[in-house]
């Protein structure tokens, strides 16, 4: 029996006295490609930060690759893209290749110094995202889309088995967004990389992912996009018209 990549049971998270997430339970299988959706303030980023161990839940169980999060140490198996605005200091003096190389640190032992093989790994990832020509450019001199591609490259450079991307396509133009989803699709189908993409763009995400996880402080729906469109609970939750609009874009 294969181990779940991620399993969450009865997760609760409070900030001060207000409930941010309540009674969230779901599991992610190897090779799943999930769109985590919900309105602004629904707790998507909070959920991601809990999964990554950046926030501690009030209660609940989380296991990653079969290990409880408190004892999990295989972070090298995970790639993470934070929300861009919070991640990049526009005046930071690092070049694109210096930033992408940071993604390799999780697999390195002390002292975590880079070698020629790492340089070529970085180059290959930059090539994948069409930013190899920018490798020596300071990240602060890039456009929003180029910065985003740099951070995506950092999340992917380590060949992770499980990728969590928080609003990865926000700063990308439509052409680059399609290219990005092609890359993710390829990783998911050919390399069986498990993917969770956080987005508020519900209509578009259904075109790419195999499952939808809809939360609004609690879990509203978890299943395929087809099921989402046919679910009577969703009709009840969104109203027939809104459900139709979302599903029609698919």
């Amino acid at each position, binding site marked *: 029996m294969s181990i779940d990549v991620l399993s969450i049971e009865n997760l609760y998270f409070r900030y001060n006295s207000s409930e941010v997430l309540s009674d969230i339970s779901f599991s992610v299988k190897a090779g799943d490609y999930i769109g985590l959706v919900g309105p602004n303030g629904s707790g998507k980023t909070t959920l991601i930060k809990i999964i990554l*161990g950046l926030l501690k839940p009030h209660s609940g169980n989380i296991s990653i690759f079969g290990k409880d999060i408190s004892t999990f140490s295989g972070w090298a198996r995970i790639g993470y893209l934070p929300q861009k605005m919070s991640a990049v200091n526009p005046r930071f*003096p690092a070049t694109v290749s210096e930033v992408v190389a940071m993604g390799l640190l999780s697999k390195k032992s002390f002292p975590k110094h880079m070698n020629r093989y790492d340089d070529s790994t970085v180059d290959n990832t930059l090539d994948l995202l069409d930013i190899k020509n920018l490798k020596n450019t300071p990240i602060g001199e890039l456009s929003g889309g180029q910065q985003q591609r740099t951070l995506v490259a950092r999340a992917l450079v380590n060949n992770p088995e499980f990728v969590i991307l928080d609003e990865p396509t926000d700063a990308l133009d439509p052409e680059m967004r399609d290219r990005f989803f092609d890359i993710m699709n390829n990783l998911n189908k050919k390399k069986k990389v498990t993917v969770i993409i956080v987005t508020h763009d519900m209509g578009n995400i259904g075109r790419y992912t195999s499952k939808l996880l809809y939360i609004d402080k609690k879990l509203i729906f978890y299943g395929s996009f087809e099921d989402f469109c046919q679910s009577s609970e969703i009709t009840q939750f969104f109203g027939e018209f809104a459900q139709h609009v979302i599903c029609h874009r698919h």
Partner: protein
Amino acid sequence: MELTEFLRYGFIQRALIAGTFIGILCSTLGVFLVLRRFSLIGDGLAHATFGSVALALLLKMSPLYVSIPLVMICSLGILKLTERARLYGDAAIGVVSSLGIAGGVMLSSIAGGFNVDLFSYLFGSVLSISNAEVVISILLSVLVILIIIFYYNELLSITFDEDSAKVSGINTKFINSTFVLLTAVTVVLSMKVVGIMLISALLIFPAVTALQIARSFKAVMVTASLTAMTSVVLGIVLSFFLDLPTGAMIVLINFIFFVSGLTYKRITKG
């Protein structure tokens, strides 16, 4: 007096050697401090150093030996206040800083008022640095620089994006604690070079100058080190020939470098 004759003086040699090492040390740490918006920790720890120097003079002990452990404790205090008491970094620095000054003034009063020794630590006296202080400065500088080299990529990653650094398995608590401890040692070592009142200049100026010119993180580190080294050497030489205070001269040269860097950036970027 000719330069060769000037360089024959033992006190000048000691000042140049210790100053160069401490300059490189300050600038290297300063780059991380400035980019993490934590640069005023130098000021806060310098004020804590003032308290510890007053204590050392009261106890008739070497200020270096008393200050290093005490200021290291203060640096961890600042870190814990930001992490556990959830104070903003500047507020935590303010708490430790004012406590250091209050302690220093109190101890000086108990000792019968300020004296020349305390004054030399406030405004620096690199030309009076002893052989033992040079050796300690070199050893500790080398140790701190080696730690920075070994943890360079972890420090870079945390400075750029702490959350992602945590996710990539970096022990950010350990690195942050190590980092503030290194800063504490650096501040104490720097008090003889530029003085307690001007330590933060040696941490901040080379870093902000390098940030105007360099186009990669490694280039920033190298440029900051070169800037600090040059400013310390020029500061010692000029202050000797012009008969002006060395610490203040080093800071003024750093300011000139910073303005030059700013002008260079404006010209090259149109």
